[in-house]
C-alpha cells in the first residue's frame, strides 16, 4: 500500500474516530462523576440514556405526541433527572455501606428501565436525527459534515461548562473535596448527599446528551444505547475511572482505536476488541493511560 493511499484512508478514520470519541468521552464523564463522588459504578447509565432518547423520539415523532424537538428534549431531560433522583434515593441507604451492593442495585434499576422502554416502545428500531441542516464540505481527504460540527460544539460546551462548575463554583469545590476525602468533608459539615445528587444528575444529563448525539449515526433500539455505553465504560477505564480529563481523552482514544480496528481488522468483533482494550489497560496501566501526564487531580 502506498503512503499517500494510507494517509487518504487514515485521515477520515481519525476524524470520525475523534467525533464519535467525543461522545464516548461525554458518556464516560457521567460514569466517572458518579464513581468519584459516591464510589458506585452506575450500570443503569446506558439504560437511562436509552430511555431519554426514546422519550425524545416518542414526543417528537408523533408516536406519543408531536412536540417540537426542543421541547421533547426538555421533557426528556426532566424525566432523566427525575429517574436519576429516584435511583439515587433508592440506593441512598446502602451507598456508604457497600460499593458492591449499591452497584448491584444500579443493575436492578437498569433492568427496570430496560423493561420500561420495551413495554412502552416495543422492540422497534427507529431513526432519530438531530435538527441540523445536512451540509458537508471536504478538507483534503476529510469530509466534515454539519453533524460533526454539532457534536464538536456540544461536546466543547458541555465539557467547558462542567469544567467551570467544578473549578469555579462552591458546588464544584465540594465535589472535589468529597471525591478526595469524604470523611473529612463530613467532619466539616458538608452534606455528602447533595454532592452525590449533583453528580448523579450531571451523569444523567451527560448520558442523555451522548445518546442523542450518537443515535443519528446508527439507529435507536432498546439495545443499541445500552451497548453503546460499553464504549463509555472502556473510555472511563482507559482514563483511569476516576479522572475527568482522563475520561474525555480516553473517549477520543477509544473512538480512534475502534475506527482503525474496524477498518483494518474486523468490524464484527468490536465488543471483543473493547474487552481486550479493557483487560490490557487494567494489566499495564491500572490507573489509566494518562496517569503520569495529568496526575491524580480531578
Amino acid at each position, binding site marked *: 500500500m502506498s503512503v499517500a493511499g494510507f494517509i487518504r484512508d487514515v485521515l477520515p478514520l481519525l476524524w470520525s474516530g475523534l467525533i464519535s470519541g467525543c461522545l464516548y468521552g461525554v458518556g464516560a464523564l457521567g460514569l466517572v462523576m458518579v*464513581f468519584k463522588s459516591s*464510589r458506585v*459504578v452506575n*450500570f443503569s447509565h446506558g439504560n437511562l440514556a436509552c430511555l431519554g432518547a426514546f422519550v425524545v423520539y416518542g414526543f417528537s415523532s408523533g408516536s406519543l405526541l408531536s412536540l417540537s424537538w426542543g421541547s421533547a428534549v426538555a421533557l426528556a431531560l426532566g424525566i432523566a433527572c427525575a429517574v436519576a433522583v429516584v435511583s439515587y434515593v*433508592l440506593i*441512598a*441507604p*446502602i*451507598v*456508604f*455501606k*457497600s*460499593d*458492591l*451492593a449499591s*452497584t*448491584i*442495585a444500579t*443493575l*436492578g*434499576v*437498569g*433492568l*427496570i*428501565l*430496560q*423493561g*420500561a422502554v*420495551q*413495554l412502552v416502545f416495543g422492540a422497534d428500531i427507529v431513526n432519530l436525527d438531530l435538527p441540523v441542516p445536512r451540509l458537508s464540505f471536504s478538507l483534503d481527504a476529510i469530509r466534515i459534515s454539519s453533524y460533526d460540527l454539532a457534536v464538536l460544539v456540544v461536546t466543547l460546551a458541555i465539557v467547558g461548562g462542567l469544567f467551570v462548575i467544578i473549578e469555579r463554583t462552591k458546588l464544584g469545590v465540594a465535589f472535589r473535596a468529597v471525591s478526595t476525602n469524604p470523611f473529612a468533608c*463530613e467532619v466539616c459539615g458538608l*452534606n*455528602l*448527599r447533595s454532592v452525590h445528587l449533583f453528580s448523579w444528575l450531571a451523569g444523567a444529563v451527560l448520558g442523555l446528551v451522548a445518546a442523542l448525539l450518537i443515535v443519528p449515526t446508527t439507529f435507536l433500539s432498546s*439495545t443499541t444505547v*445500552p*451497548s453503546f455505553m*460499553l464504549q463509555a*465504560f*472502556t473510555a*472511563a*477505564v482507559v482514563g483511569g*475511572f476516576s479522572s475527568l480529563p482522563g475520561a474525555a481523552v480516553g473517549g477520543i482514544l477509544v473512538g480512534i482505536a475502534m475506527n482503525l480496528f474496524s477498518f483494518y481488522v*474486523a468490524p*464484527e*468483533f*468490536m*465488543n*471483543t476488541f*473493547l*474487552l481486550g482494550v*479493557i*483487560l*490490557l489497560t*487494567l*494489566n499495564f496501566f*491500572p490507573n489509566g493511560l494518562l496517569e503520569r501526564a495529568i496526575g491524580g487531580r480531578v
Partner: protein
Amino acid sequence: MAVSDLAQTSKAELSVRGGRVDAARLSMLALVAILLLAPLLAGGFLLYSLSLCFANALAVLSVSMLVRYGGEVSIGHSFFVALGAYAVAIVEHRLGLSIVVSLPLAILLGAGAGFVFAFPSRRLSGIYLAVATMALALALPEILIGFEKFTGGFEGLYIAQDLIPGIPKALQRYYVALGVLVIVCLALAHFRKSAQGLALLMAQAQPRAAEAMGITRSWARISIFTLSAALASLAGALTGFASSTVSPNSFTFFSGVFLLVGSVVSLNRLSLPAALVGGAFITLVPTYLAQAGDWVPILYGVALVVVTLVANAGDLRRFLPRGRGR
C-alpha cells in the same frame, strides 16, 4: 451415589452427637429424596424444566461463590457458562465423544479462561472486574456468531449423545444434573471448612493478616475467580446436555445479568435449597411468564433492588431518623 454419601455422613454425625436430631440436615435429606423421586410423578415438560433448573442452580452457585469468597460482582458469567456448553457440543461434533470426556474438559477450559480473565485486574478493586465482566458479556454473542465454523453461528449446535446408552433421555438429563448439583453443594460445604476456603475468606476479610501468613490478596482474587469460572463452565456443560442444544439465543448480554439476579435472590448462599431457589427463579419465571415477556426484566430489576436493600436493612434503620448517611 452422592446421596448415599450424604446419608452416611449424616448418620455418622447423628450418632456422634448422641442422637440429637439435626433438623437442618434431615430436611436437606428430605429435599434430596423428593427430588430423586420427582420423575415418578412429574411429566415430560416439568422434568425438562427441572433439569434446566439444576443446571442454572449450578451457574447461580458459581456467581454466589464469587460474591461470598471474593466479594466481587460478575455480570459476565454467561461467558463461562457458554464456554462449557459449547465445549460439550463441539467435542461431540468434531470428535464424536460424549459428555464423559467433555465435562472434565469444560471444567479445565473454564478454569483456564477464568484465570486469564481475572489476572489483569488482580491488584485493583472489585469494580474494575465488574466493568470487565460487562465487556465479557457483551463480547460473547459476537464471538459465538463470528466463529461460525466451530459454533454453528446463529443456529447453534445439537447435543445428541447419551451419557449411558439405553436409559431414557429425559431421565438421564434429570439425574445427571441433579447428581452434579448435589455433589457440588457437598463440595462447597466441605470447601467452607477447608484450609483453602478459610484462607480465601481471610484474604477478603482481613487482607493484612492474610498477607502476614503468606496469602496475598491478588492470589486469593485470581484463585477464587478461577474456581468460580470452572464451576460456571461445568454448569454450562450441564445446561447444554440438559437442553440438547446450544445457540447464541441462550447467551445474550442479559443471561449474565440474570445469573447475578439468581444469586442475589438466593442471598448469595451456597446451600442446596438456596441454589435451587436461585436456579428456579431464573429458569421458571421466563418460562411461565412467556406472554408477559417485557415484564420479566422489570420483575428481575425490582427483585434485585428490593433484595439488595432488604439484605442491607441494618443500614436502613440507621438512615431513617437522621436523614443522612453514616
